[in-house]
């Protein structure tokens, strides 16, 4: 307010008492105040949306991307349920994540501290392709957290890269049941719970290679299950049009996890240098957008056009980023990476900032500026002679 007053005063000084210029200045000041209030209110609302702990369930979250997502949610002050097939790894992951929270608390500033105090991690063993296990997980989450706001179907497996004829019955059955049966069962149960919750909820299914419909030789089974899931998403969207539950997809792009690295060749690894990311990096981008998702049918993607462009432009620099010429990994192990976590989290990423604002925001900012320009031009055009 103070600064806008100063600007108005300066404007009066400059106009030198011309009454027409004075009214113009008054109008633009008023316009500025209105726009300022709107933007302010919007950011307050956004803040309000972002605040408040969310209750999150992530399947297959004791390794790889699932674990990184869980950690990121926790560091945003959310309550997370961990689930995986083996009870031991669930326990181990809970311990690790609790340590991460403590570390986060020790370096956090006051405001962050308050949100971090809400963070809580619990977990149970659950085989997503067994209906009774999934029901148990739902009940566990409701007992521990009260309600479920976000459910992420992250559990997935591909059992390595080789031709279909070399996959055993057991392998095929596990891939199909984890990726397809698991996602369908979990989505059904999550929707069942969420539709009776006051605030509804959001379900995310994870995309993977093949989702877009391009062929996936050497991992045909995995690819076709992921492709099926994309169609499933479209059907769900139609079925749940009037429901309070949002169904979305999240696409992590290529992540350096066991799933991708099992059986990858030297040539693959050189390609990975270009486009792959560490799970923590991907989670840092996906989680803030998953937390504020609204409506239904949204796609939260990591590999967006600006990122791909950036990767192509910096391709030369990215050689040897994760793997050296002989295909040896040159990136730090998970524990070491997490140790440097606090600093890397604080680093500002331009592409992240760009994408935090959805397309709609950019459109409205653009149209607002056009409207402003029009008002200024039309009112200043008035006194010109001959028009």
């Amino acid at each position, binding site marked *: 307010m103070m600064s806008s007053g100063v600007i108005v005063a300066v404007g009066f000084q400059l106009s030198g008492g011309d009454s027409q210029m004075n009214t113009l200045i008054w109008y633009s000041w008023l316009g500025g105040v209105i726009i300022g209030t709107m933007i302010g209110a919007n950011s307050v609302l956004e803040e309000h949306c972002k605040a408040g702990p969310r209750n999150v369930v992530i399947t297959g979250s004791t390794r790889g991307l699932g674990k990184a997502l869980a950690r990121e949610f926790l560091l945003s002050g959310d309550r997370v349920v961990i689930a995986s097939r083996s009870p031991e790894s669930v326990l181990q992951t809970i311990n690790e994540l609790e340590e991460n929270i403590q570390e986060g608390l020790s370096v956090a500033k006051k405001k962050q501290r308050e949100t971090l105090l809400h963070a809580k991690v619990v977990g149970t063993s659950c085989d997503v392709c067994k209906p009774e296990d999934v029901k148990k997980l739902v009940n566990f989450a409701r007992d521990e957290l009260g309600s479920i706001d976000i459910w992420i179907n992250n559990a997935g497996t591909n059992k390595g890269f080789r031709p279909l004829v070399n996959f055993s019955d057991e392998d095929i059955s596990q891939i199909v049941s984890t990726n397809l*049966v698991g996602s369908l069962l979990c989505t*059904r149960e999550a929707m069942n719970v969420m539709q009776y919750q006051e605030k509804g909820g959001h379900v995310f299914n994870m995309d993977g290679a093949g989702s877009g419909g391009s062929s996936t030789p050497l991992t045909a089974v995995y690819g*076709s299950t992921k492709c099926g899931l994309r169609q499933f998403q479209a*059907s769900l969207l139609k079925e749940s049009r009037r429901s309070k539950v949002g169904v979305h997809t999240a696409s992590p792009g290529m992540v350096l996890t066991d799933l991708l690295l099992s059986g990858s060749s030297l040539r693959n690894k050189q390609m990975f240098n270009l486009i792959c990311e560490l799970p923590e990096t991907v989670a840092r981008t996906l989680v803030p957008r998953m937390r504020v998702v609204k409506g239904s049918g949204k796609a939260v993607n990591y590999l967006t056009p600006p990122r791909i462009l950036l990767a192509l432009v910096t391709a030369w620099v990215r050689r040897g980023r994760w793997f050296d010429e002989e295909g040896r990994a040159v990136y730090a192990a998970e524990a070491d990476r997490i140790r440097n976590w606090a600093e890397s989290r604080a680093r500002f990423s331009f592409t992240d900032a760009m994408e935090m604002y959805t397309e709609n925001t950019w459109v409205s900012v653009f149209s607002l500026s056009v409207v402003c320009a029009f008002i200024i031009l039309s009112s200043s055009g008035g006194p010109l002679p001959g028009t």
Partner: protein
Amino acid sequence: MVPPYNILITGSTKGIGYALAKEFLKAGDNVIICSRSAERVESVVTDLKKEFGEQHVWGIVCDVREGKDVKALVDFARDKIKYIDIWINNAGSNAYSFKPLVETSDEALMEVITTNTLGLMICCREAINMMRNQPRGGHIFNIDGAGSDGRPTPRFAAYGATKRSVVHLTKSLQAELQMNEVNNVMVHNLSPGMVTTDLLMSGATTKQAKFFINILAEPPNVVADYLVPNIRAIPTNQSMKPTYIRFLTGLKAYSRIFSRIAFGARRNKYVAED
């Protein structure tokens, strides 16, 4: 290759599978029938043997979801007719359930996914394994269904997802075979369109479904009559290109919808609409 061909069709004791089997037999080919139910296999094989002679048709019980059943099927086929030219993966299920996902039972979900996806994958694997060692090579046909093109299938989301994955599997396998330089086996897609079988008719409960079934569906024998010559043409021409044989093409569908709206054609053809 010269006819007669050796054909294997999964899930072939009723519906499209049965109609296809009959049509191949009429063309003089040898056919292996299989399905989950022992009595149905027996009665169908007896009927067909009566009509087409003892040495043209054989049948065995096989649950495509079981690896060992499919292996037994391959052994049975080798034993009876030595090699297979055309393997049609027709077995499919929608558990006769048309409900939103949240109301679908565990059993229905499992049944649909294990039959349509898991079963198909196991069959494809065994078929490729068998055919690539045959001097004559072979062709595998996967049957698509609603949702294959990626369009949504509300009320049967699980079925649609599995059928989408069928088409994708075919595509990946084509790429894979080429990569591994297997050039005597090819995987194709086969699209029968809408066929008046139990699978489709169990969904004729809403007004919209009845409308489309009346306009677009055809009885199994009509569909098989069109598909079989097209399938047989592939080994006859010794073509190794991937194909997607479609009965109900877009043009056909749109012209039928037009004639229905313009002239009221095919109203109440299979089910009463009002």
